[in-house]
Structure formats: C-alpha cells, structure tokens
C-alpha cells in the first residue's frame, strides 16, 4: 500500500460504525445505535435540504454573521427569545433545615436531633457536641459565597438530590448560562456548534457559535468563553459528564487554560430521579415529548449530527446545518422549561 492508499483506508476506518437496529428500545440504550427508520428519514431529510439550499448563502439562511475575533472566523447568531427562566427564590433557611449537611450527622442522628427540637443548622450552633461543626457549615453558607454552599451540598448529597434544585433558587436569573454543544464525536474530535442561552428578565438572549470549518474552532471557543465566563452558574443536560469536560478539553487542546468551573446544575440526574419510572429512557427528547409535550418538526438524531456537518463542509451547502441549529436551540429552550417543571415537581413532593 502506498501512503496515499494508507491514508484513504485510514479515513474509511475513522468513519463511525453505525449500528442500525430495528427496535427503538434497543437504540435508546447506546447512542451509537440508530433506528433504521430514523436513519432513512434523516438521510432523506439531508438530501432534501441539500437540494433546497443549493447555492444559498449561509449568513442569509440563518441570519447570522461571520465574525472575526483575532483567533479566526466563525458564524455567530444572536437573538432574543421570549421566555423566562423560572427561578423562584429560595431562602437559605430552606436548605439549613437539612441537618445532614453537618459532618457526622446521618439520617438517624438527624431524626433524634429534630425530636429534641433542633430544626435547623442555625439552631444547632450551641449544641454541646455538634455546635462546632454546625458553625463551620453555617459559615460556608452565610459568608462563603454561592459556590461554597454548593460545595457543602456536593460533599454530602448524591448529584440527583433535590436539595441541589432547591439551592438553584439562590441564584438570580441573570446568573445562569444554559449550555448545549454539538460535536463530531465523543472523544478527541472538534466541537462544531456551541449554543448558549443567557436568561435575562423575561427573555433569553440566545447565542450560537458555529464553526465555519475545523480550522476555525478556537475562534468560536474564544467568543463563547467570553460570553459565559461572567455567569455564575451553568445549566445543562448531562453536561457534567459531557459538554463541560469536552469544552475544557478543547480549550486545553489549543493550550488555553480557560475553565468552566462555575456552579453546575445538571438536569440529567434530577430528571432521572423525578421521571425515572415513567419514561422508557432519559434522553432529553423523550423527556420533552413525554413530560413537556413539546413535539419537534424536523429534527436530526444526535448521532447523525457529524454526518450532516460533513455534508455541509463537503458540498459547501448550508442546508444540512438547519436541523442541527434548530435542534441545538430547542435543546436549550427545553432545558429552560425543564428546570421550571422539575421545581414544580419538587414543590409537589
């Protein structure tokens, strides 16, 4: 094999092994599997879009603009969407009534203490045995800043504990950044689209940073980072294990030490806990359909996103990007609604 043939055969092997299955149940377990019907529909959609948008200009189609920021060029779309992030405020006392946040206190000890009349960590500070530790904990909540309180909760609670949700009430609407990304794969590949919702009073300022091509990734990452760095909290669906580490890895790939170390509310874990028994799987699409009653019109399965982006690159045709951008935007809006829904569930409990 000469080197040209080698490169070609490597390219072949780098394509995703798409396992096509007939059963939807099976497809939902692993994302590399795709249902046969969905695959056909998606390819049909892609071909239709290629035909329809042949020769069209990407900026016109999406109403976005090509931005140059010193790091390179990327497509940026900005719009304001009417929607409000439900963020009922929460008082610190709501959280402090959980005595288990004090080191050494477990379920049964808490019960005993409550029976003795200690309702809150605040009331515990003069307790002979627990006073010292209660004071330490209290200090973290009272004067340590939002992060420090969240750290205390993270240490003692599982990531799906409703206390986290409650705690999100400490943050103002304007503290959040809602994040969702589309990528070429799950590992060492580039990101292709970053969606960011910045809730304001009564609306969401919505941004999309789209890669013009792989060689301009850093430019998109940079502008995205500048937008999110001031937000105190990140809201995602499965972002703790995917979106955030993925982005941080891309930053470090380019030698940038930017980090996304804000407070992080990952709705995946809460959803699993709240709706687990009622749903066939915990995909965002399923939750939005079954719980929020949202139906998407044209959509692309996540596993097909790389294929659509590749078509855009190879054919220089904006068509296949349409469902990716819509999909991403819808994910962010869904997250917004999902937080409200989860909080309502919490109140119902």
């Amino acid at each position, binding site marked *: *094999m000469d*080197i*040209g043939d*080698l490169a070609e055969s490597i390219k072949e092997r780098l394509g995703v092994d798409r396992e096509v299955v007939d059963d939807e149940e099976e497809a939902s377990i692993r994302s590399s599997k795709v249902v046969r019907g969905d695959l056909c529909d998606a390819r049909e959609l892609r071909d239709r879009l290629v035909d329809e948008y042949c020769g069209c200009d990407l900026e016109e189609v999406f109403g976005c603009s090509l931005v140059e920021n010193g790091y390179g060029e990327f497509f940026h779309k900005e719009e304001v969407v009417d929607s409000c992030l439900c963020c009922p405020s929460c008082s610190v006392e709501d959280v402090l009534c959980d005595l288990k946040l004090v080191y050494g206190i477990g379920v049964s000890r808490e019960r005993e203490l409550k029976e003795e009349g200690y309702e809150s960590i605040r009331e515990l500070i003069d307790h002979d045995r627990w006073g010292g530790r209660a004071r330490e904990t209290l200090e973290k909540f009272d004067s340590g800043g939002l992060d420090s309180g969240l750290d205390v909760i993270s240490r003692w609670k599982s990531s799906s504990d409703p206390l986290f949700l409650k705690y999100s009430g400490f943050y103002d609407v304007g503290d959040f950044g809602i994040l969702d990304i589309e990528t070429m794969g799950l590992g060492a590949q*580039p990101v292709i689209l970053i969606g960011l919702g910045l809730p304001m009073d009564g609306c969401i300022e919505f941004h999309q940073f789209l890669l013009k091509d792989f*060689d301009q990734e850093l430019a998109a990452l940079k502008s995205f980072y500048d937008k999110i760095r001031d937000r105190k909290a990140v809201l995602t669906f499965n972002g703790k294990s995917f979106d955030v580490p993925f982005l941080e890895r891309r930053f470090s790939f380019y030698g940038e030490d930017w980090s996304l170390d804000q407070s992080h509310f990952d709705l995946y874990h809460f959803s699993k806990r709240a709706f687990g028994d009622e749903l066939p799987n915990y995909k965002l699409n399923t939750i939005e359909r079954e719980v929020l009653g949202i139906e998407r019109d044209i959509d692309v399965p996540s596993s097909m996103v790389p294929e659509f982006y590749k078509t855009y690159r190879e054919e220089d045709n904006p068509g296949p990007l349409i469902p990716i951008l819509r999909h991403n935007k819808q994910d962010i809006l869904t997250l917004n609604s999902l937080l409200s829904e989860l909080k309502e569930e919490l109140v119902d409990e």
Partner: protein
Amino acid sequence: MNKVQQTDKIMDAIEGVRGSGWYREQIEEIRELPGEEPEFEEVELKDEIREYLDRNGIDLYTHQARCIEEVRGGKDVVLSTPTASGKTLAFNIPVFEDLIEDKDARALYIYPTKALSNDQLESIKEMDDELGLDVDPGVYDGDTSRGAKRKIRESSRVILTNPYGLHHYLPWHNKWKNVFKNLEYIVLDEVHQYRGVFGSNIAFLVRRLKRVVEHYGGSPQFILSSATIANPGEFSKKLVGRDFEVVSRDGSGSGKKYFVFWNPLEYEDQSIHVQTSNLLSYMVDGGLQTLCFTVSRKMAELISKWSDESSDKKIMAYRAGYKPRERRIIEQGLREGEVRGVASTNALEVGVDIGGLDVVLMSGYPGTMISTWQQAGRAGRGNDASAAFLIAFENPLDQYYMNHPDRFFEKSHEHAIIDLDNSNIAIGHLLCAASELPLKENEWLTQNNQEELNHLKNEDILHETPNGVVYGGEKRPAEIVELNNISQDIIKIILNGKLLGTMDRAQAYREAHENAVYMHQGETYVVQELDLDDKVAYVKKREVDYYTEPQSQTDIKINEKQETKTHKNLKINLGNVEVSEFYLKYKIMENDKVIATEPLDLPPINFKTESTWITIPKETIRELEEKDMDIEGGLHAIEHAMIAMAPYHAMCDRWDLGGVSTKNHTDTQKPTIFLYDAYEGGIGITEKCYQLINELLQTTYELIKDCDCENGCPSCIYSPKCGNDNEPLDKQTALTILKKLTKNQNKKTT
C-alpha cells in the same frame, strides 16, 4: 549451605539423571559457566535512603551506583543488566531522593503489562512506607475506578501505568496538567520487550507523551531498564529520541552455573513434554527448587500436573490469568522456599520477585537469547551454584543449538529492532498526536513524516489551522490504532451481533475464511461468512474436534532494488517488493492428518514490503542439473532453512518472515531465493538479514548439514507454514548449493 556442598548437589543431580530409567543419552552438552564475585561501590546518599539500605542489609553494586550518579547528573540513562541484578532499586533511589527534596515532583513508571505494574506497586509502596514519604504510589490502568483515578492524578507522586492505557489517556491531558507540569522522571521498565512492531508503536507513543508533557512545561529525565541486549544505546535513542548514558557493566556477581543441553529426540518413544515433567519431578525430589518454563499456558498446566503426580512434593502451575491472590501465594512460596517446583509460562521471566532457584528448565528454546538468559538467570541464589536446562523441540533452531552448542555460547545477545520509517505505523500516531495537540511545523513527528501528513490533509482528515495541524474526523484516532498491530486493513469478528475480536486481512485469510475453525481464548468457532466488502467475519460457536489450515501460493515482484553486494559469484540484493498471496484451498485436519481439502474463493492479498534476495549463477545450477538433481527442491529447502535461522541473527520470530524460491524469476531471470518482511511496509528484519547474509548462509548450511535425518525433517528444512505442503524439498541438493555458496568461509574457518 556452603558453596562446595551446593555445587556437589547440583552436579550429583545432573549426573544422577544418567542413571534413571528414562535416560537415553539426551544430554548433548554440559557447560560450566564460572561464577563472578559481586562488585560493590559506595555512594553518597541522603540519610533516609542510607538508613533504608542499612536496615535492609543492602550494599550497592557498581552498576547501581553508576546509575544513581548518572541520573543525579541529569542524564537520561539506560540500565541494561541481567535479571535480578537490582535494576528497580537502581532507579528508585535517585527518583525517591528527588521526591524527598521536591514535594511537588512526580514520576511516571511505565511497564509493558498491567500485571507487571501491579507486581511492582508492592515494592514501591514498601519503600514509600519505610521511608515515611507520602509518595502514595498508585497503579493507573483500565482496572482503576474513576474516583481512584482522580485521586491518583491529584496526589500520587509515583504513577504506574502501561502503554495500552497511556495511548488512550493522552487525549485527556488537561486532567493530567499537574502531573505533567511537575513530571521529573519517566521510567520505562523492561524496554527490551518494546521491539519489532510493538516497539515501533511504543516509540511513537513515547514521542506523543513527550510533546504533551512538554506542553505543560514538564521536562522529565528518562530512565530505561532492559535485559541485556546488544545495542542498548542505539535502541534507547530510537525508542525515546534522545541520547542515553548506557550502564551495562553488571556488578551483581553470580554463582557457578551448569548449562545442560537436553535433546529429547534421542528418546523417540517418549514425548518432549513427558521428558520435561520427568526432569522436573526428578530435580524437585532431589531437593532442588526448580522452575520450568513452558511455551504455552496449556503446557504449564499439563507439565505441572504430570510431574506433580510422580513427585513426593507439590508441584504447581503459574501463568497469567490466575487471580492475583493465587499468584502472590506461589511467588511468596518460591521466595521462602516452601514451594519446591513450578511450571510456568514466561510470566515469571520478568519483574516478579521470586528469589533465586536451584534449577531452571526451559522447555523449548524461548525464541531469543535475551529471553533464554533471562529465564536461565532465574536460577542462582547469590553466589550459589545452579543449573539451567535447555530442552530442545523438534524444530530447526532448537536442533541447531543441540548440534552446535559452541554457537550458542559464543552468540551475543540480539540487536533489538525498532523501525521509525514504517508509514503504516507512523500514520496512525500522527493522527493521534494531532488529536492531542495541534501539530506544529518544527516538531519531530511533523518533520519526519511530512509525506504522511500531506496525504492525511489531502484526505481531509487533518486540517491546517493558524494554530497548527488538527484532527477533524469522527472516531477517536486512538480507537483505530492498535499498539500490537501494523496493518490498517482490519476485519472484525462478529458473534451474534457482538464484536469478538479484530484481525488484519492476512490473519483473517488464514483463520477466518468461510468454514474455518477460529480459535479464541480456548473456545472454537466456525466461520459462517467472511464479508470482505464490509470487512466482517460472522462466526458461530461450535465444539469441533478438527481444525483448518489454508494453503497459499506467493508471487513476488521487485519494485525497487536499493542495494546489491557480491559475494564470490553470488549476488545479494536489498529492496522493495510487492508480494501477492493467493489462498486457493484449505485443509481440514484431525490429529495432524488431512481428512479433506476444500477450495477457497478469495481475492489475493497484495502488499509492499522490504526483501532481501539472492540470485544464484546459472552455471552453478546447470552443473547440478546435469547430475539430475532437483533444483526446485533444493532452493525451496534453503529458503525454509534460512527463515528458520533468521531469528538466530535478527531478533524476530520465524513467522515475521516470508519466503519465495524459484528456478527462474521473471524480474531477475535467474534462480532466486527471496526473504521478505511479512508486514506491510517492512519492519527492518530482512534488512538485518542482508547485512548479516554471510553469517546467515553459514548457519543455514550448518543446520542442514548437521541434522541426522536423511531426506529432510521438521528439525531442518520442513516449515510449519509452508503453503505447498513442504513439497518439493531436496536436502542433498540444498547442501550442494549451499556448499558452493559458502565455500569461501568454510576454508577460512577450517
């Protein structure tokens, strides 16, 4: 026991064998290797380390002292000394001294296997505990939980891992920032295992590791440890890309050793393995602690079982795959002397501390001199006498040594080969590197592989950016690059919709053609279909008592002649060739007998590789033809014997080489014998054969000449992988030709 007593005991045992009922003159040779006194050297040490050594009654050997001083002097060091000479301590001391001094300093220890890193963790932990440091060493591999991994990255100052893991961790380097930033040492242990295809892959992996570490500002020193090899300096430089200080003068000393050559073929009625187990139980019953190395897991089990049955004492088996606890018990038993006899695979050849034994039996030549001396080195406690038995198999190289013991003892350790110019290997690692950090123009990887880089850009897999060249494909490149493999043409084996394994195309043709019996981890499967378009073989699990063996014919075409040399009237060439293997039928075998032959319908396999070929003058052939000799049989026999002897000269396995012989080759228009590297792109073996061709022809001649058989046998000219059923073969013609070809040297040596 004093030295004289031990020597007598060993000698008595060896001589005693001659009196046993199963002795038929199998001892071909007993060679006495004199012992050497250990040499010690004082080194200035930190108080903590000095106390640690004193407490454990350790004096430093000269090579350990030198290693410590070179490392302290900031040099990259390779330590190439025999097994059990205290290599681990030699690099642990300077590393730990630094860890005491600098509380942020980190070290990364890389072992060839998971099992080895687990074994070594114990001794490093012990040292850490005794020194009262908080180094907190940890093994980081596929078995480490996610939580433990985070803790190790955060706080372990010595991290032990293996290349397979590292290959997949590198893209996640941002998590390793603090480790890499403070990385002072990279220790690569047992580096002689990193040779050939595996080693060439590791050389690229090490370069990927270096660039990521340097990216975070780390500038570690490298410390390599190796068994004795012929070229530690050159080898280390290829592996790491730096100049190394070589420490190879062993100061550990040794006792007297008797090396016994045992040829089971002298007693035809008793199998090699039965004789091996007889020897094992005989030695154990004679009060000698004995370790027997076998070639396979199955033989380790069988030999321990058979010898256990005939011995008064317990004889155990040891191999990879046992639970760590079971292995620890055997290791400790060996160390403390309670376990008297063990049959083991080469899992006990390296690393694991089992102390010194009285006798080592090697059932079959272990394949390389390096392994042979490593295994033999397991015998010998301090300065006590010991014995090592080489028990020959019925194959050419083993039998050659039985007939030429001098050749064995005068032979130096092999050259370890690494090839940095094989595009098949380079191209995969380029992709991996570009997915880890953008490739810049001034890097070694970029400069050394410009052509591969350009092709990958043309294929739109790599992309030029203002920050360097980056990866933009769908899969993680590390997923498709296998450290043991070279080919990019990979077939998947699928059982009930699940992936059972992968193999390259050539292997699939041999083991996974339609109706082939495919063996995998002791289970048998029958191949239902080999789909070459989708590169998938579908198998079903079946218990069968037959196996299949395909037969192939090979065509070879010369693409480019690079070098030619003339020796007497013989022309020897080195160059690039194109090999086509045609798989036309397969045999169904039961108990080594052919029960049927079926046709195969497969397109030929074509690949380009390196070859060395010899053309023989037509006059020589004409003379023989006039005497009615079988020229084709003669050339074919020489080809087989040369391939069998190649591992004597270059470190390789006979399966790493292929051969073709013909009375008249289209490209040369002469009688020609080709040897070629059986790997796409070549891996440097036939190049070594070209350099050593006189020696190779000489040993080939000796092999055939000194074999007792009349018309050829598995000990000389038969090949287990011959595509033509070992036909035609003609021993006498082969000898006549070789005699003419090596005439000059024979005169010199006699």
